């Protein structure tokens, strides 16, 4: 696997710049996830308060607002866990370049949700992340300087 990791620069070297972007994104998400984990994000209903404040004013469709308000706000702790878990998943996946494509799709979904629930202050940032995740998914950024190249060599297919 290590050999494949190094080989990837030779065979998919055109993806090296995007790999750096991927690793940087991974590091950003890792910081964000660690901050959520070590603070009281998982213990106190801050996410519920944020959603209550910003979701009604967002551009989200009505059905989405109803679902989030009725189901997610009462179960805020599950939502907090999901957000933190997905951020960790994106972080680790991007850092080591493993299952980057499907995780990038996950990142797209996460960013979309964040656009609606985090408020205008974070809207542009989340839109940028949305675009970046889309690019990661499209290119298959894990193949260069990542574990994905090992599987890509052997299995090909849409997942790698």
């Amino acid at each position, binding site marked *: 696997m290590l050999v494949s990791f190094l080989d990837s620069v030779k065979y998919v070297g055109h993806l090296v710049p995007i790999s750096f972007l991927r690793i940087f994104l991974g590091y950003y998400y890792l910081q964000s996830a660690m901050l959520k*984990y*070590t*603070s*009281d994000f*998982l*213990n106190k209903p801050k996410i519920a308060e944020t959603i209550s404040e910003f979701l009604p004013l967002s551009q989200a469709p009505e059905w989405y607002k109803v679902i989030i308000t009725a189901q997610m706000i009462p179960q805020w702790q599950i939502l907090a*866990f999901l957000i*933190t*878990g997905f951020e*960790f*998943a994106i972080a*680790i*996946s991007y850092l080591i370049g*493993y*299952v980057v494509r*499907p*995780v990038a799709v*996950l990142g797209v979904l996460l960013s979309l949700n964040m656009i609606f629930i985090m408020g205008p202050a974070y809207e542009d940032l989340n839109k940028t992340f949305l675009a970046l995740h889309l690019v990661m998914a499209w290119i298959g950024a894990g193949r260069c300087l990542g574990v994905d190249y090992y*599987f890509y060599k052997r299995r090909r297919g849409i*997942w790698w």
Partner: protein
Amino acid sequence: MQHFIIFIFSIFFVLVLSFFNRKAVVDEAQKTLRVYGYSSFTSKLGPGFDLKKKFELTCNCRVEFVEAADSGVLLQRIKLEGATLGADLVIGLDQYDLQKALSEINWRKLDFSQLDIDEIIRPALSNSYFVPFDWGVIAFVGRKEDPLPAPKSLKDLTKSIYKNKIALMDPRTSSPGMQFLSWVYDSMGKDEGEKYLEQIMNQAHSFSPSWSTAYGFFSKRQVSYVLSYLTSPLYHQLIEHNNSIEAFTFTEKHPIQFEFAGIPLDCKECTLAEEFINLMLSDEGQKIIMNKNFMFPVIKSAQVGTPFEPLSKFNHLAQFKIPSVSDVDFLIKSWTSIRRGEKNAK
């Protein structure tokens, strides 16, 4: 796809595990009051939930309830966890548990002699370590529309018309069951009491392990009468709007059951524990306990103007005393010997 699923699953698994094992992210200033009790008190259905919410608003602390199945497990748990995690307050012991509790654990002395309580309750304050927070009167409960004539005394229960119609509790596992034994011996004496119990063995429908099982039989009309509390019909009146349930007054004086709270000597948050007891004994706290437990409050003013007030004037009550170890021993041994006298098959 497999890799992705396993990857996500692993991330969440590690996250959940590490979350549950990290030190709680709480304010350094926020203390935790650990309260041990039974689920009937600590659950949302019981008064504990509301008392906890009220207390946490003012105390700048967290209240953590720890449940136990029964008094034996409760006391063992306190011994196991008290030194490390802290056991600050114990709630729900009845008078039959007190001597056992005193022999297993050391308790702080409490002084609530200045409480504005009924004289009937004052004997419950005679010990220095536990304070009562509610009380009930043991009585048989039945339906008004039952075709059988209402029993008027304990002796009536041995009549053939009541055969297999009475649900009792096993005194080994249930406090009301123990109360019943005590009731029999206090009103009839030792010899008569034993003869009576031998008759009741064949007469009763069942001796259930808990009050809830016996009451379940009554609710499902498997039996006509069940040993319960004077206030049980109030639940049906106030919650179910059903006035058909009534409690019977017997010629023998009815026993009283108290529930006590105590503070172990090794408490970590002893002041908070005392404050919690103060809340329980305040007017507001007593109302919460009364409405959730359907038991009488110990503070006089709490029941004024409520449906509990007229019932609390019931004065055909036995003298209350905290049973000693030898009293409890006697009750259990007599029950055991009467049991052993029975054959296997009916």
